[in-house]
């Protein structure tokens, strides 16, 4: 199967710091791909290059076979590529429902004039937007909070609002920057279930995450970055036994110390 997303030899540096060098990996449609690596490995930079926040200095990004390198984020959203943010970016002045309604901006089209004059087509579109946003909120268990200002939600609920906002337009691929960072174990468990359900619905996910047990549980593919270089890509089992990964995380050549689960060992190395 041709990958939905192909990242080819991305280069990005900030001042003298090489954040990404020749990074290549791919993500399949309808599958979960995780990008892991120690802090400073370039994971978020990679996401920012893919989503158009940064323009990479070298290499290219293909989405559905088309080159999308350097396209503006709002153009990518229209093509079915959305994202969430590591430091939450919920619209605090909007209600929970309105936050998710904004998520449909890229796939709807009524402009200033039809909005000001309330033309009939505009009202029908508004109704469709509202209905779809409510559907997405219901899916994430937030329907009861639809009318609250998003600024009043708990941290965990804000994360779910962000996810609903990224999913509501039924994108082909969602980039998730640390979807469970800061969540308690129960919330993390729940988020894992949600991610698998989203995958079941055919949406591809590319997630950057530090929680190794979650990564190993939900991912189809894992990409490992280290100091701006891609050092491995494969399924979770293979990654846990990949010599280069073990060396990077644990400082040992081959196997984790006896009696330690590989996933737990990776986790411990992170912390």
């Amino acid at each position, binding site marked *: 199967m041709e990958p939905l997303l192909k990242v080819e030899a991305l280069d990005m540096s900030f001042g003298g710091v090489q954040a990404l060098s020749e990074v290549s990996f791919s993500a399949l449609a309808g599958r979960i791909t995780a990008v892991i690596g120690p802090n400073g490995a370039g994971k978020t930079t990679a996401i920012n290059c893919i989503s158009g926040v940064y323009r990479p200095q070298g290499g290219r990004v293909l989405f559905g076979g088309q080159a999308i390198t350097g396209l503006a984020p709002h153009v990518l959203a229209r093509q079915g590529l959305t994202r969430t943010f590591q430091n939450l*970016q919920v*619209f605090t002045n*909007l209600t929970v429902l309105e936050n998710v309604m*904004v998520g449909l901006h890229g796939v709807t089209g009524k402009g200033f004039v039809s909005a000001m004059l309330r033309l009939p087509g505009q009202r029908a579109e508004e109704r469709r937007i509202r209905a779809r946003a409510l559907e997405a909120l219901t899916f994430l268990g937030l329907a009861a909070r639809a009318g609250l200002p998003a600024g009043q939600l708990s941290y965990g609920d804000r994360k779910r609002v962000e996810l609903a906002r990224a999913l509501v337009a039924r994108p082909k691929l969602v980039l998730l920057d640390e979807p469970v960072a800061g969540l308690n174990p129960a919330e993390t468990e729940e988020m894992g279930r949600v991610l698998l359900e989203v995958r079941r619905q055919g949406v591809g996910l590319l997630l950057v995450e530090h929680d190794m047990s979650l990564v190993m549980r939900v991912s189809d593919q894992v990409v490992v970055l280290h100091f701006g270089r891609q050092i491995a890509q494969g399924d979770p089992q293979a990654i846990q036994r990949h010599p280069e990964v073990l060396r990077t995380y644990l400082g040992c050549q081959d196997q984790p110390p006896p009696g330690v689960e590989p996933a737990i060992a990776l986790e411990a190395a992170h912390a």
Partner: protein
Amino acid sequence: MNGGRAFLWQLLALAAAVVLAPLLVGNPYHLNVLNVMALNVLVVTGLNLLIGFAGHISLGHAAFYGLGAYVSGILSSTHGWDPWLSSLAAALVVALVALVIGIPTLRLAGNYLVMATLGFNLIVTILILQLDEFTGGPSGFSGIPPLKVLGRSLASDQQFYWLVWGAALLGLLLARNLADSRVGRGLKALHDSPVAAAAVGVPTAAYKVKVFVLSAVYASLAGSLYAHYFGIVTPKTFDIFFSVELVTMCLVGGMGSLWGGFFGAAFLTPLPQVLHVFDEYKDVFFGGILLVLLIYQPQGLAGLWTRHARARAARSA
């Protein structure tokens, strides 16, 4: 910016007050103050769309107001255009000017944008003063014909009252419609977090320019109404001090609140008239109000109102 059902009821209440006010106000001078107030409501509502939505302050809106007045005034008197047509033409010219100004300046952040709009206002004032062949220079441009409806000139304070308040109410309604729409949500989102708004498909740069153009058109239409009401325009009416006054009205009323424009204009327009003592020191006075308000009540008068409503809701809950 809240644009739910409650707003429509409040707008209806204001419309009722507008209908009743002339019964209580017989004095033409007071009607004149009410008319100027409506013009200010229109400009400040437009300005508030920019400040409240895009989060940008413009110190150049007096220039858009002035361009609307001068362009429509000159076209209708020197060139004999119908005043309605000349007002529309002025709005188009201003939209174009705002587009040309907006595309480079809206890339600037915060204070730089304020300085750019301020500079623009200064340029327009100087042009009006220097092109005296067309504009009449410092002594102003007079002989502007009034607007006509069904062949009747709207020359008196009373007749103009209906027109200008109708326009102000319509301006508020259209602003509310925009706030409560796909575009309005996109604008509010880009004010909260530009990167997140872009990530879901909001064309942030284009929206900023569009809302800037829209707010300039509000100012232009108000300016054209002004010109055809007074029949004379002078450069001093549209200098940077008026831009500061408009921003003050916006802040006093409540930034980003749909009613902010109304409250601000309603409170500050009659003030210099009521307190004649202060007329000499008007700019000092406005500056003082601005300072006190930003320190103690940054949400403006509209904020006072919502705080009161929230407290009442909390008590009854």
